[in-house]
């Protein structure tokens, strides 16, 4: 299993860079020291091996805590600082941790950032001699948007992640690279760069600059010497706005792994025009199937519709109708995934119809529409009111429920505005209320992360369609 390989590599205590953020770099020798110290601390303090909540923003202690928890046989739950207070509270209530690492106020189980830095920098540490994580143990829990307004925890096992990492390793087939990170650690897109960097003994290079601070971002892109980057197509679009995002800025960039949302041909074409030696790998998969399950190397001659490709070898993909009957090639239906990537379900007693049994195997019904043509999977869009926005998966009813919970809101309808290609360009909320938009936004921000805050329009009446349902198309026209 991959933790054995990681431990063996870490024990070489090499002076190669393991992790870089801002001006700071840490070697593999230092990283091993951090992991070993935290490992010992957790085995001593976290009796009963409760899940460990890791709170913060991309700092090195977070990654060290992840590996230390795993080796100590404890599940970890990454929580980025961008998650609002009420959502964190719901996560903590569900996880019931004994230890929370990071500066999360108002929780008495908290090990502060300063404390964890003190612990992990001890030079007289003991070697790690045993990996306690077992194949069926829950390796991490990542929370996604739930339709009831309460976030759902997806339980990923060690087996799930091991299979994902083997597949990622085959996709890149190199060692000692510089791997660029864009996503924060509570977004499972980061799983790819967090683990690919370790398993290939690469430097994990963290981009962490203020939004729209192009100068700082481009300086660190340039300094990174990155060879592989993991990002969402939206992030690439943001970088592509500036024509200096090209081979001169990042001469060593060989691969971009895309995941999290639909990659359109214009983005891919622009990238290929600006980078001569670049290979774009498009991937697809829901959080419930461990980062991603299909991949496709986009040819330089970019076609109009870019497929998400073929499944990893231990996974099978079916296109099914509403009665779970398998559909033939080129027929559009729901994407169903079986095999080693399918997670162990949701934390707690969440009612769901997504984790099912299909032909005797554990399966996940994605809620994504797609079709297969010439053996390649194509993703179209979400089936229901769940959408993909800025790489995040959002239940529109989650936004809706959080709006309705505000006492002064009488009614709310949330819809997604899409461009011609079906890509969501904004979330719109139509509400009936006497409050001002600014006040609604402020209150929502206490409950929802930034990417889920809709654009708001106050309306008196909601138009109805022939079925007596709210006519969302008409609402969209009014905006």
């Amino acid at each position: 299993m991959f933790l054995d390989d990681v431990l063996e590599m870490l024990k070489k205590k090499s002076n190669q860079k393991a992790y870089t953020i801002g001006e700071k770099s840490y070697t593999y020798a230092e990283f091993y020291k951090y992991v070993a110290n935290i490992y010992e601390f957790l085995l001593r303090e976290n009796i009963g091996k409760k899940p460990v909540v890791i709170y913060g923003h991309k700092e090195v202690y977070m990654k060290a805590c992840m590996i230390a928890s795993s080796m100590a046989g404890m599940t970890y739950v990454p929580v980025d600082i961008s998650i609002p207070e009420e959502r964190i509270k719901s996560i903590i209530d569900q996880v019931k941790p004994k230890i929370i690492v990071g500066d999360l106020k108002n929780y008495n189980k908290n090990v502060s950032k300063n404390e964890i830095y003190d612990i992990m920098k001890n030079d007289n540490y003991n070697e790690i001699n045993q990996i306690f994580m077992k194949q069926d143990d829950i390796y991490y829990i990542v929370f996604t948007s739930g339709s009831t307004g309460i976030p759902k925890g997806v339980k990923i096992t060690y087996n799930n992640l091991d299979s994902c990492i083997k597949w990622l390793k085959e996709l890149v087939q190199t060692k000692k690279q510089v791997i660029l990170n864009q996503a924060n650690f509570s977004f499972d897109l980061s799983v790819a760069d967090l683990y690919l960097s370790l398993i290939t003994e690469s430097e994990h290079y963290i981009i962490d600059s203020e939004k729209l601070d192009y100068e700082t971002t481009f300086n660190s892109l340039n300094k990174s010497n990155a060879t592989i980057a993991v990002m969402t197509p939206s992030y690439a679009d943001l970088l592509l706005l500036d024509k200096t995002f090209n081979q001169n800025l990042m001469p060593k960039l060989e691969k971009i792994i895309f995941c999290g949302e639909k990659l359109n041909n214009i983005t891919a074409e622009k990238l290929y025009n600006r980078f001569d030696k670049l290979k774009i790998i498009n991937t697809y998969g829901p959080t419930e199937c461990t980062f991603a399950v299909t991949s496709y190397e986009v040819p330089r001659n970019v076609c109009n519709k870019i497929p998400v490709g073929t499944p990893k070898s231990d996974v099978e993909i079916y296109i099914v109708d509403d009665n779970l009957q398998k559909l033939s090639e080129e027929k559009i239906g729901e994407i169903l995934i079986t095999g080693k990537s399918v997670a162990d379900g949701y934390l707690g007693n969440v009612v769901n119809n997504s984790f099912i049994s299909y032909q005797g195997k554990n399966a996940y019904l994605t809620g994504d529409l797609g079709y297969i043509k010439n053996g390649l999977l194509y993703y179209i869009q979400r089936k229901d009111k769940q959408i993909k926005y800025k790489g995040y998966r959002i239940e529109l009813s989650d936004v809706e429920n959080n709006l309705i919970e505000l006492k002064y809101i009488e009614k709310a309808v949330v819809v997604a505005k899409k461009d011609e290609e079906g890509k969501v360009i904004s979330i719109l909320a139509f509400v009936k209320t006497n409050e001002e938009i600014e006040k609604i936004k402020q209150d929502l921000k206490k409950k929802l992360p930034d990417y889920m805050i809709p654009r708001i329009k106050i309306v008196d009446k909601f138009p109805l369609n022939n079925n007596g349902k709210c006519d969302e198309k008409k609402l969209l026209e009014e905006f």
Partner: protein
Amino acid sequence: MEEKIIEIIEDLTDYKELNNNKDIDLLENEILDSLAFIELIEKLNNEFNIEVQPTQVTPNTWRSVKNIAEYVKRLQSL
């Protein structure tokens, strides 16, 4: 110029009071998010026949309509 920029931003976001509130901080008040920003740049490029290079611009430029208008004028005069 400012009026056109206001029209573009109002069209891209849910903030419809820009005319009465020209000095509002577009970033601080989260009127411009990253997707609106991508669209804004594309619209500025097409509308004013310029080529905005975000790296040549301090992030503060995107804070106000006035700053954006000044930047666009500077690009046009080049």
